[in-house]
């Protein structure tokens, strides 16, 4: 049995630590013939969907389990014929969520754009358009809808192709069974569309908790909240235990 994992830095290793031996996917190597980790630090849910489809369509998935670790919905991708897939990060702190709910001062939020190799894209037209899109066109609800569309698209694909999988998330905000609505409770309300999309998600395919919950307080440092070795061990124990419960 093989394992495919995809996600962000919580699965790939942060840009500082890299793909160290104690990363949770690497701890699965004794239990699987092969572990393929296509996660990327700073990656978006759009990237996770795109690269998972790409991998699955190019490989025989008959004997492969898939774990998808969804990430912050403030990241996304657009295609550029010049730059390839642009990784767009909306730098929004929790204090500034209100700004995305179309309230007052939005000047603290900004967008950073990188190409697939991690190089900053400095094109002023692109930056201006994407900053204004974040500031004026997109609400938290719109980001959440984009996220749920990705989850449902991948759910449809994996089910259709009889690929066994489990979904999990970086933190509770993106976890379908836990706090997907938590991000709203302070500032915003959920639209009927989001509630209906969420109802279409198969909750039985999700881990019980998010990675941040499994790792407890075992992060690298105050400035780097990624899981340390113990945190990764706790994540591995929890995820692989649940994976065995679901798929044997």
């Amino acid at each position, binding site marked *: 049995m093989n394992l495919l994992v995809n996600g962000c830095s919580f699965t790939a290793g942060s840009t500082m630590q890299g793909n160290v031996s104690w990363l949770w996917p690497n701890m699965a190597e004794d239990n699987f013939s092969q572990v393929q980790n296509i996660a990327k630090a700073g990656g978006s849910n759009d990237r996770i969907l795109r690269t998972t489809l*790409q991998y699955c369509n190019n490989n025989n998935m008959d004997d492969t389990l898939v774990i998808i670790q969804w990430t912050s919905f403030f990241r996304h991708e657009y295609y550029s*014929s010049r730059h390839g897939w642009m990784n767009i990060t909306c730098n929004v702190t929790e204090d500034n969520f209100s700004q995305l709910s179309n309230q007052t001062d939005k000047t603290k939020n900004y967008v950073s754009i990188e190409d697939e190799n991690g190089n900053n894209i400095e094109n002023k*037209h*692109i930056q201006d*358009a994407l900053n204004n899109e974040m500031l004026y066109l997109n609400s938290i*609800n719109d980001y959440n809808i984009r996220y749920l*569309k990705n989850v449902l698209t991948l*759910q449809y694909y994996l089910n259709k192709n009889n690929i066994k999988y489990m979904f999990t998330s970086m933190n509770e905000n993106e976890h379908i069974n836990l706090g997907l609505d938590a991000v709203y409770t302070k500032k915003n309300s959920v639209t009927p569309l989001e509630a209906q999309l969420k109802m279409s998600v198969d909750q039985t395919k999700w881990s019980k908790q998010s990675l941040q919950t499994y790792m407890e307080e075992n992060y690298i440092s105050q400035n780097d909240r990624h899981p340390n070795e113990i945190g990764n061990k706790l994540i591995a124990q929890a995820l692989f235990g649940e994976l065995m419960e679901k798929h044997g």
Partner: protein
Amino acid sequence: MKLYANGCSFTAGNGDVHGADGHLMPPANYTWPSLIPVEHVINESRVGGNNDRILRKTMDYFTKNNSDNHIAVIQWTSPVRFERYFPMFDCWAEFCNVNNLEVNNTLQQTKLQGKYSLHADNGEIISKFFDNSDMNYDKFNLIETATKVLMYAKEINDYIVDFYKTIILMQQFLDSKNVPYIFTSMSFFNHIKDTEACMGIEKFDIINTNYETNLYKCLDQSVWNNEPCSAIAKNHVFPDRHPNEDGHILIANNITSEFKKRGIL
């Protein structure tokens, strides 16, 4: 049997986008859904409608209503149209592409004729807030932003990727509700059926990425009719290329025949 239909002006009927009170015009009664031989028709299409709205309204309808004894026709429209939610006004703002951009009027008129037009479910929202906003949510800024994103930040590929995801979600949702359905579209630009008749005609002149190709494989070809509404109505159209009353009869005949072929009607 009840027919649920959703789409844009090709299903709602064309004409003025807004009525005198600023509301978007409801579907006209000569349109093709009302010509399908069923007991009752629910037509939630609207002029200038977008695919996001079509998914949202359809999910809302079948969540609030028992889906038994229903069939559905979804008429997809241009992928570059979209909608966004505005929590401050609790409304969905709909962005529709417009054909003409004239720059020989005043600056204000020119800006208003930008490459998108802005609609909302409730016309009052537009006049109360977007027309008079002093918080950068005025029509100018929103239309300009949507246009800049189209021109500089996104490619047609991005709109198609999102279009395919929306179709996949609709397939998944209607299947889960056991509603028999047919997909059709406004024009060949939005018609995904992989038949000879559709290949190479009025398609976007772009190079597809692997992503679109992979998403395309998830689309259920069997639920699509063979041709979009623009091709079915052919020469029975108004000068603006919307189907006239004869065109609507042709579309209704085509959809009825598709349902009969599948043993649904």
